């Protein structure tokens, strides 16, 4: 199997360059001492990060986004736990249809999710607010949560729960004392992934936002002003660092979850 891997390895390396091109330029321009985003670079500065501190609208948008992302993470993970548990443990009528509907947002164009919620909300006479953005974000994060938790539940050894019930524990106690601790790392991974998706989501939020802005909506508004771009690069750099920290944590937790339930770490990847 090792023959002719030369050309493929070169391709793989070139592909990584393509994948990383934008992500690498982000910090490069965030620290570049020029208002114009172009090469050659002119020097090192922390000015753009300093400007983040003084931008009140940015702070409001960030607080809104954090609130939305945290609420979304909790709600989506709760719904995802129900879905994953039902899908991995039980057989019931119309299972494929029910699970199919829950997972649909994964393959639906986001604009459809945004537009349909917008129409429904306006028809009901509700006001657009941060809350309406949360409704949309929970919808798109639940399938991710269900997928992550699905692999955690899948690897769970049923005999542990059966033993607990045989020994006289109630179903609820069994879930609380046996199941939950075993899948807890999966739950945390789902919280982190949902949080990260919600924090960066623009297409749906743009439709469902009322007068309040989220971080991506703020970025979208600022992209029109060339003099604001360097600060946006700094914001993007901070966001990237934060996302990577969160996701590395999520991945670490997911693996320790799989280890706890006694399966091979590489297996549950999808």
């Amino acid at each position, binding site marked *: 199997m090792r023959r002719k891997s030369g050309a493929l390895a070169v*391709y793989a390396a070139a592909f990584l360059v393509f994948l990383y091109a934008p*992500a690498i330029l982000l910090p490069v321009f965030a620290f570049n001492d020029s208002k114009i985003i*172009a*090469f050659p670079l002119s020097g090192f500065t922390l000015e753009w990060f300093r400007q983040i501190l003084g931008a009140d609208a940015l702070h409001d948008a960030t607080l809104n986004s954090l609130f939305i992302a945290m609420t979304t993470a909790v709600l989506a993970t709760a719904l995802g736990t*129900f*879905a994953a548990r039902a899908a991995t443990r039980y057989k019931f009528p119309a299972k494929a249809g029910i699970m199919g509907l829950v997972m649909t947002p994964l393959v639906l164009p986001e604009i459809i999710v945004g537009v349909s919620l917008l129409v429904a909300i306006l*028809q009901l006479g509700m006001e657009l607010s941060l809350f309406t953005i949360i409704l949309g974000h929970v*919808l798109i994060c639940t399938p991710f949560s269900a997928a992550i938790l699905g692999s955690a539940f899948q690897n769970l050894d049923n005999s542990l729960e059966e033993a607990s019930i045989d020994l006289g524990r109630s179903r609820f106690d069994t879930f609380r004392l046996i199941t939950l601790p075993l899948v807890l790392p999966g739950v945390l991974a789902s919280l982190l992934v949902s949080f990260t998706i919600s924090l960066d989501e*623009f297409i749906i939020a743009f439709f469902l936002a009322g007068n309040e802005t989220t971080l991506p909506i703020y970025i979208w508004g600022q992209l029109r002003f060339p003099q604001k771009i360097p600060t946006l690069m700094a914001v993007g750099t901070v966001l990237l660092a934060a996302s990577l920290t969160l996701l590395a944590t999520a991945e670490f937790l997911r693996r320790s979850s799989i280890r706890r339930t006694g399966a091979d770490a590489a297996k549950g990847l999808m």
Partner: protein
Amino acid sequence: MPNSSRFAKWRRSEAFRGLALASPPFLYALTMLAAPLAAVVLFSFWTQDYLTLDRTPTWNNYKTAWTEAIYQALMLRSLKVSALVTAATVILSFPIAYYVSFRVSPRRKTLWIFLITIPFWTSYLMRIFLWKVILGYNGVVNGSLMGLGLIEEPLTFILYNQNAVILTLSHAWAPFAILPIFVALERIDRSLLEASEDLGDGPVRRFFRVTLPLAMPGVLAAAVIVFIPTIGDYVTPRLVGGPNGLLIANMIELQFKKANNAPLGAALAISAMLIVTIISIIFLWLNRRYIRSRA
């Protein structure tokens, strides 16, 4: 009381427990997705005149969406762009998925998959904007090519047109194509490859007769996962598409927001979604038939 005891028995059954557990996410999807989708369908048959809504059902929005030149042109252009993005993404992604599955040592595979997904946690809007920086008149690509003396004048065909939209979207969707293909390749029983070799197939023949057909489910999943959602992206065409790169999603957004004609926007959104779904179903059906005929 036979009825109540039967109910009590059913309540303890596996079917009841499963349904009870599945109901919160199901009800959420029903009220937040299925019902709103039905509302959009209803809405697309109404008429809006600035702020007043006329609820008399009419086909007019669909007539406009399907017959007026501008909407036809945008829809066709969107389908073309989505199809090209899908083709480019799947073709570019296959070798990398193949490399990770067949050439990377098992212990390093997770690391590679992680490496592939990391760039996608860069802010989505900033990532698209950075492609503008890379492809622009004074951008990274032109700067490097001129620096190397390969071109005299900056290339202008790489930004503010469809090529830029296709490139940016292919980049954005690459991991969504790589992962399903990788999973399909991982599932291939390696002894089948040895068998093919033992039967005298060369590497090329073996690839087309064994590896590719067995990887097809992953390739098809990748194609559909990329094709359907790209029709709904209005950000990429707006930022890198230039005046002639705008797509149907931009028009839907415009109708819902500035143009204040949400029913027409709804008709356009429903039409776009139906078209991509039908194309995907036909595509999957044809491929399934093809795979069966070869099996």
